[in-house]
């Protein structure tokens, strides 16, 4: 009996019918439905024990003592550390996204060598370290031929870098500009020495002149905690806060009073207030009080109104508040944390001297120089600024053959960044030690990936603003970095050894532990989330009258306005572009699509002949920025305010090409009497397009 077509069809029909009585179809459908829920691109949870490990998160300038939550050893979230006396459980908006930033697409994944304009190839660490050594060796022993720029204000890494340079015969160690730098110079102009501190916690009236202390200035989280402690919910406030600055920012918005002071009039505002206080009976035992009094007398109520655009009643109100306060404090600072002249600092700090608040509880303090871990390192007080250095490179006065860039982004975060980038082009070999692919790394000849803060040892000595000597340290949270990176200081210490230098530490972990020992702190206790504090030094300051006599005043015409860069810590720092999670909090009146807004009050807009929503061009020096106008009555008279930290040309899809970099229109000038490069108080020309 053969199998014909009909017979075959019957078998198939029987097979189909039989299959219905087996699990094939039913299980197949079930498994297919499960399979469809398990696509390869769906992220999988990392399962394991959930732990919270103490860490020093140096993503923000001050550094937050945090707890990093891990699951199965991998970080997934950051929370505050309640046991830390500095942060008291708080965390800043940058460090809050620290775990996500470990996996940022902008991270440098492995050592990279430049092979053409804008082209890099990944190389092995041993090749990268050999290249570094090859380039440094012939420059050894030549003053200024090896230079370094550091963007880290507080770490022992600065000691390693400067000691390495000293050992190689170069003193070309430079720091990126910050408040700490200018404040140190200001204290010297007032006849003192050391880093100034501000006891916000102990004050009952805090006048912040420019300093955005509750958002982006100093130890932000500690400042916020002090503010919260003094103003408990439902109870009477124990301290008043006043913000005097160019814009109603996050700090001003929670203060008792906001005084809109143009950034070009900071010194004038302070001296007018000093004059009013002196007229109200304030006297000082400072040696230059008579000179100071005479200088302040020039800043009459009329002069105050002319320079600040404010009514004299504002001064009277402030004087009344000072008279009522038992422990007033004036905090001096630039509204965007850098670029202010030492004279602006002196003008504000002199009010503390006038009121007898130096060295007092709730007043201004002076911190002693911290002991060093590496004896040959440069003292922090003697640090030189990177902006001046790159200006010298541009003019050919400085001719380094190699530049080491550590945690700094001078090609983005210095005024006239195109000029800075051009100056860097004059340096034959540039090494960027960077965690992220920033604008400076994109110009480097060798990029050496640095670990993320939760992957490395690091420390923070006296973050700017602390009232007492303070030291924090941390160790890695994870067993292995996410990327193929090495601690920059480990790389440099190894290079130092091969160049015949001994800096007293073989690894950066050794250097940090040596620092802790020198300070008198227990490293293990610090790494477990503790903080070491010491006592401020005694000493007095004068009123800085001789320096203040040289304070310049800006000349503005019809089309020129004072320019106020605005920082918001959530939007990033000089070293860090806006964290991806934080792009959600950028307002539509700050950045719309790719257009940044310039904010000004209605009177300024009218003076400039522009309306809300108009597209304008802001120019200063050789720079130009386009923006949309947003009329905001929270901006000081005759002032245009714009956000800093946008307009990146590197980084990642979340920040690249969003807005414009307003560093382009910050102009640098030499401050009279101090020679410092300053750019706070820049002016811009605004034209409709």
């Amino acid at each position, binding site marked *: 009996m053969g199998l014909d077509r009909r017979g075959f069809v019957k078998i198939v029909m*029987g097979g189909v*019918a*039989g299959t219905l009585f087996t*699990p094939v179809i039913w299980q197949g459908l079930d498994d297919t439905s499960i399979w469809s829920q398990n696509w390869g691109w769906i992220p999988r949870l990392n399962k394991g*024990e959930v732990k919270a490990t103490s860490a020093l998160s140096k993503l923000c300038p001050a550094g937050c003592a945090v707890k990093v939550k891990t699951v199965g050893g991998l970080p997934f979230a950051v929370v505050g550390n309640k046991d830390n006396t500095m942060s008291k459980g708080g965390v800043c908006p940058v460090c809050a996204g620290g775990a996500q930033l470990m996996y940022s697409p902008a991270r440098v994944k492995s050592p990279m060598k430049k092979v053409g304009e804008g082209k890099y190839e990944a190389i092995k660490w041993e090749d990268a370290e050999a290249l570094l050594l090859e380039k440094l060796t012939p420059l050894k022993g030549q003053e200024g031929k090896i230079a370094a720029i550091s963007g880290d204000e507080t770490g022992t890494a600065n000691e390693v870098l400067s000691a390495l340079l000293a050992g190689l015969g170069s003193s070309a160690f430079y720091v990126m500009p910050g408040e700490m730098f200018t404040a140190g110079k200001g204290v010297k102009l007032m006849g003192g020495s050391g880093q100034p501190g501000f006891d916000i916690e102990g004050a009952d009236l805090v006048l912040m002149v420019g300093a955005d202390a509750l958002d982006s200035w100093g130890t932000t989280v500690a400042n916020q905690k002090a503010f919260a402690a003094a103003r408990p919910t439902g109870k009477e406030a124990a301290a008043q806060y006043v913000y005097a600055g160019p814009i109603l920012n996050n700090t001003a918005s929670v203060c008792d009073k906001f005084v809109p002071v143009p950034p070009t009039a900071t010194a004038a505002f302070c001296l007018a207030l000093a004059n009013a206080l002196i007229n109200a009976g304030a006297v000082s035992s400072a040696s230059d009080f008579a000179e100071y009094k005479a200088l302040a007398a020039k800043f009459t109520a009329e002069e105050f109104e002319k320079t600040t655009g404010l009514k004299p009643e504002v001064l009277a109100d402030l004087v009344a508040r000072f008279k009522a306060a038992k422990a007033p404090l004036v905090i001096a600072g630039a509204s965007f944390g850098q670029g202010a002249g030492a004279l602006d600092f002196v003008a504000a700090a002199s009010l503390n001297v006038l009121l007898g608040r130096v060295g007092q509880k709730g007043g201004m303090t002076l911190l002693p120089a911290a002991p060093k871990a590496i004896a040959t390192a440069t003292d922090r007080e003697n640090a030189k600024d990177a902006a001046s250095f790159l200006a010298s490179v541009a003019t050919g006065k400085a001719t380094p053959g190699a530049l080491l860039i550590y945690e700094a982004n001078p090609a983005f975060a210095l005024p006239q960044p195109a000029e800075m980038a051009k100056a860097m082009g004059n340096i034959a070999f540039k090494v960027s030690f960077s965690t992220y692919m920033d604008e400076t790394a994109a110009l480097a000849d060798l990029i050496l990936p640095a670990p993320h803060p939760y992957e490395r040892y690091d420390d923070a000595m006296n973050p700017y603003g602390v009232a007492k000597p303070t030291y924090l340290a941390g160790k890695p949270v994870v067993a292995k970095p996410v990327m193929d990176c090495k601690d920059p200081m480990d790389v440099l210490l190894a290079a130092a050894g091969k160049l015949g230098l001994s800096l007293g530490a073989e690894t950066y972990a050794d250097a940090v532990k040596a620092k802790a020992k020198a300070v008198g702190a227990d490293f293990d206790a610090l790494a477990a989330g503790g903080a070491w504090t010491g006592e401020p030094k005694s000493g007095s300051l004068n009123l800085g009258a001789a320096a203040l006599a040289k304070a310049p005043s800006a000349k503005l015409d019809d089309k020129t306005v004072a320019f106020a860069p605005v920082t918001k810590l959530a939007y990033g720092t000089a070293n860090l572009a806006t964290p991806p999670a934080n792009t959600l909090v950028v307002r539509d009146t700050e950045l719309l699509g790719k257009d940044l807004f310039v904010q000004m009050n209605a009177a300024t807009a009218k003076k400039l002949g522009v309306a809300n929503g108009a597209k304008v061009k802001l120019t200063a020096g050789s720079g130009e920025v386009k923006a949309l106008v947003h009329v905001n009555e929270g901006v000081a008279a005759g002032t245009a305010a714009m956000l800093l930290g946008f307009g990146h040309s590197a980084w990642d899809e979340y920040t690249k090409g969003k807005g414009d970099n307003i560093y382009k229109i910050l102009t640098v000038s030499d401050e009279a009497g101090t020679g410092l490069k300053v750019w706070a108080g820049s002016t811009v020309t605004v034209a409709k397009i």
Partner: protein
Amino acid sequence: MKTQFFVAKFDQKLQERWGEVMEEKKQCKGCGGALPFVIGFVAAVIAGWVLFPDLIYSKKTQPVRFSHKIHQEQGMECSSCHTFREDGSYAGIPTNEKCAECHADIVGSDPAEKVYVEQYAQKGKEVPWLIYQYQPDNVIFSHKAHESLECTSCHPDMAKNDTPPVYYENRLSGYSKQTMKMWKCERCHAENGVSNACHVCHK
């Protein structure tokens, strides 16, 4: 006229084809009747119940031949290794940290221990154990909430097991054959008066 011609032609073709079909039918008489259907039916049933399970699952063995029996004979309880953490979460299969408490170095003569110590513990590498009852990420199962039940209510009794059972991995879904399906959870919940609302297990 033309239309009539085509109709007649079509009719003729139809008649011819019908004749062929009837011829085939005559020739096919007695060539199986319902038998082919039955053969196909039975073959499919056998294939579906016997061959299909072997085809849909691939067989895998654990990277280390772990003997529960030996450990149980040392007087250890399930909870000696499968512990609750301080926060109440369940550690599941122990990590090197736990195993190395006893096996940082080779302590016995079993070759499987040598494999574990040399290839995993001493290299700081976790053993990629195959999880028989791995649940997807969208299932939030709390061992703490089910602590009053015996382990063997849901898991096979491993105490006497000297060689880990074969791991059957579903080639399509990727899950183990022993992975508990939702209907089992729901049945037990229903039988014990526990809510079967979605949020009970899916957060």
